[in-house]
């Protein structure tokens, strides 16, 4: 069974928000749109986004880490938002594991957003329907697009390629390989939701120097001591019997 998902590499995410607005740009005029804004040019502007970057700090100065943490629907394998939906609007697709909302059936009761432990759903206050990441389902199967562009908008946009899209059930996919080899993990596995999206952790590179790295025969300071002996200086020639 296919389970499409995003792998998000926190080791390279710089928190630029390219995924945030490229998502909105594609989807507001796409099938999941519109994505409504309120007070667009006034006080406390808000609006629907399927993807947001949260930035937070860990640790105390000077050992502080600043973490940029992109968050969107995790397309759980056991999505708690689906069984609570009274109208069947919230559903998980059998063919690719994408969790979607049928706007025609949604009554905006918000049960699903209460059930989602990740806060990944956003009610569209204007249409009164629940909206969320669709993994750009209206792009990824679009055969009119070149094959390498059939990816979610956020994945194509991401300047650090921190977002990898693929089938996490296919052992040979890049997504599965990264989870396996780079320590991919799920958010709050204790909830039993089995999120399909995974995160790759930060890695730290160090340079380990040894003391003899600084004591080398080829140190150029030694080269400077070179002086050519003068013709009158003593040599073996002066004392040799042969």
């Amino acid at each position, binding site marked *: 069974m296919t389970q499409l998902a995003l792998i998000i590499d926190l*080791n*390279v995410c*710089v*928190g*630029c*928000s*390219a995924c*945030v*607005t*490229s998502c909105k*740009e*594609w989807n*507001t*005029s*796409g*099938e*999941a*749109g*519109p*994505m*409504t*804004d*309120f007070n*667009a*040019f*006034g*006080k406390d*502007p808000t*609006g629907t986004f399927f993807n947001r970057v949260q930035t937070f*700090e860990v640790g*105390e*100065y*000077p050992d*502080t*880490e*600043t973490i940029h943490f992109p968050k969107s629907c995790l397309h759980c394998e056991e999505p708690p938002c689906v069984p609570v939906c009274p109208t069947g609007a919230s559903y998980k697709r059998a063919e690719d594991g994408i969790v*979607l909302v049928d706007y025609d059936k949604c009554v905006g009761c918000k049960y699903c957003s209460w059930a989602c432990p990740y806060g990944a759903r956003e009610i569209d206050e204007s249409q009164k329907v629940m909206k969320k990441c*669709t993994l750009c389902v*209206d*792009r990824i*199967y*679009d*055969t*009119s697009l070149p094959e390498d*562009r059939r990816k979610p908008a956020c994945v*194509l*946009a991401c*300047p*650090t*390629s921190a977002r990898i899209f693929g089938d996490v059930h296919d052992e040979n996919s890049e997504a599965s390989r990264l989870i396996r080899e780079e320590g991919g993990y799920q958010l709050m596995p204790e909830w039993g939701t089995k999120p399909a999206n995974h995160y790759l952790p930060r*890695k*730290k*590179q160090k*340079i380990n120097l040894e003391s003899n*790295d*600084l004591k080398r025969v080829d*140190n*150029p300071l030694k080269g*400077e001591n070179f002086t*050519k002996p003068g013709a009158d200086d003593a040599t073996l020639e002066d004392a040799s019997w042969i």
Partner: protein
Amino acid sequence: MSASHERKNTQVKSTTCYMCACRCGINVTLQDGEVRYIEGNPDHPLNKGVICAKGSSGIMKQYSPARLTQPLRRKAGSERGAGEYEAITWDETFSIIEDRLRNIRETDPKKFALFTGRDQMQALTGLFAKHFGTPNYAAHGGFCSVNMAAGMIYTIGGSFWEFGGPDLERAKLFIMIGTAEDHHSNPLKIEMAHFKRNGGKFISINPVRTGYSAIADEWVPIRPGTDGALFMALNHVIVKEGLFDRDFLIKYTNSAELVNNDEAHDDYGLFVRTTEDRRESCIDPQNKVWWDRTSGEPVSSQNRNADPYLFGEYDVDGTKVKTAFQLLADRLESYTPEWASEITGIPADTITRLAHEMGVTARDQKIELPIAWTDAWGEEHDSVTGNPVAFHAMRGLAAHSNGFHSIRNMTILMTLLGTIDRPGGFRHKAPFPRPIPPCPKPPKGPDDVQPNTELNGMPLGFPASPDDLFVDDQGEPVRLDKGFSWEHPLSAHGLMHNAITNAWRGNPHSIDTLLLFMANMAWNSSMNTSEVRNMLVDKNEDGEYKIPFIIVCDAFQSETVEFADIVLPDTTYLERHDVMSMLDRPISEYDGPVDSVRVPILPPTGECKPFQEVIIELGSRLGLKPFVTEEGKRKYRDYPDFIINHETAPGSGIGFLAGWRGKSGEKSMKGEPNPNQWEMYANNNCVYQHKLPPSYQYMRNWNEGYLEWAQHHGLTRFSDPIQIHLYSEIFMEFRRAAQGKRAGKQPPEHLRDRVETYFDPLPMYHEPLEVEMTNRREYPLSAITQRPMAMYHSWDSQNAWLRQIHAHNFLHMHPSVGNEHGFKDGDWVWVESMHGKVRCICQFSEAVEPGTVWTWNAIGKASGAWGLEKEANESNKGFLLNHLIAEELPCRTREGTISNSDPVTGQAGWYDVRVKVYKAEDDEPEMTSPSFDTAPRKPGMMAYPKGPMAYRSGSGFFKGLLKKVSAKTTGSK
């Protein structure tokens, strides 16, 4: 939802982004004439298909309510600054400006001042200014990063960003220092991700850990303005412990060359020169001398069989001399890590370790590329060597009044490590490297400005000696901004931040007309913003404004528009032709020259006209040489026609665009005009890329093949090798002038000490000028800004999506600041410098050096500007730090004021301000201060309906709003 999506009435066009100065290739999908989607162009060499938050939000810029759509005139009888305007036609607009400018040009051309922002069309605006005859022209560089440009160009003949950068494809250690998140944008992000994944170590040195620094393997917090001290200490360790690349220093720098060290000698501090081996060059003849260790004799440095000493003191014909490197080593002797630790706040053992990591990585992880090349002395090399330590730096180093020397120090570190134009280190981008300094020179005196005459010299250039300064007989400045004067001799980008204050005061002279293009000088681009706003409306006793006439061209209702007598509505980037030219700041890659264009994706909105068309029109009407025929008739139909047919000199074959030249597009770099050049660019992703052969891609300062190719194709005038100025004889010449030891131009008495001090031929460290004059007990904290990745300058508060990411800014600080002064996270506080105070909201952070407070740049806005409502966060909770920063130093001498800028380059000292922070009183309003009256909306601006806004392309809603507006204001459409 169905899986497939049928797209109707859509088309895709390629052009170039302009949501920041990065200039990525974009593909724009239109649906029924509205923008459906903007994505990165996968076939573009710069961004390779990716796009950032700003680029993805271009739709909301196109349809922004801040758009100006009509030429406007301040209403007769209304006061400047009151914001009352009426729409006028372009015919009226042009005749008003033409009459005014013609009169100025006939009498005193310097009374016209043209200053532009982050516009990327300096080659055109500079051409206009030069032929108009005014020296009072500059773009934003003087208040942005001229220290970065000059500090590196005067040392290695190249610089960061457009002109060079870190080779992260091959580097093993990457040090980023003083870099905010938008210099450079997508290309740097792409490369940083590759670098991290390849297992390199990334060290970020910055007072603040945001953006890029977040993914650093090591964050080294540093006190603002002390970077130069850190570099002095790193260089100290590198030299002391022998971690430098001796071979590189001898062959490719002036390290081993002998300097006269006899204080009594006339030539003290100058290189010993031979009369032979003088190669033709514009400024830097290589007839210098080494001390050969085989013969024990002086020998020409052009004798490449010689084996010179790097260190040492010698005697040449009875004169004491030292190698330049010995002078450097002597200088660095006392600048220990312990010394730097006190200044920077970085532990001494960390500094030593950093130096070891750099030195050992450079030495032990060498790269050998099997690329044969020939050096400028004819020696053939089988391979190219790289020492894989790369650096990147930007405004954090540059925007201090000690930035020039900080950057020169950094460049010397990069040189000691042997990383210049080598794999894994620093790489040049065409048209760099250029001679040190590059050949263009400013005018030399007041006589170079004459009525009805082209300026004699370039408005901006690179002085190579005191005699290149633009001063009068008394040594006083000629330019309005005092550029190229003794106050700021190497001000290669001008000092736009002083233009308004100087014009208001009438010192060095008053002006008549100020034309500002895309420069928000009434807000975030000015220091001392409140006072500058007052100066713009200040009047003489006779009732005339001190700056009599102000023209502002912008696509959007910036704060500066409020002060215009005439407003010219520019187009957006999706509505015009544009060039990213080799004559300006192209988008070259490490492997060769690249330039690019914008083509219109959408028709202009309302009466919007690209500023380039305004320049062509005015140039033609005024009869300026490049724009008219010999008979004085208009030469070019429009801007696209100008771009195709203009040549730098008749028949030179060099024009604004390097690609598809020649009659049918068969030539590149040089060639006759091609009538189909625009189409050829449009059909090729709007970009022209010239890949050099591998043997020309490295060591370009000394690469015979490259240098000859560059000369042949008009990139540079000379093909001489460009030796690195580890020791700056140019600086010594300025110092000698200040000491009265040199014939030629002399500094005024009151500036002699200043010039002598800061024109040090060796790397030096000094405190930022304003810090020296501040009571640090009273103002214990440094205040700086950072640039958020989701916004560029002031441009994006008008953008419905981006302003949801940053609707207002906070003053970020370590919790200890609040604890000490009795306020909590989220409280309203005052931040106060000796120049002013601002009320804002604080936010505590562990990711900031505790002696520093910081905020995001340019998010705070003046009420009503940028199409925002009165209640918008930007003008109520957001704030502008500029109110705390002065454009002049707090010391008024008999001779007048002096700019708050670097004494070498005139770079604005944005980050030198010291502040204190204290809690706002409980009964104070929870609102930013200072605040300003709400700017009224202008005729021609769209009125967005209240309530929810949902963008759907093809609905016609936004197009409809714009149409409605233009119909109303013109009354005819």
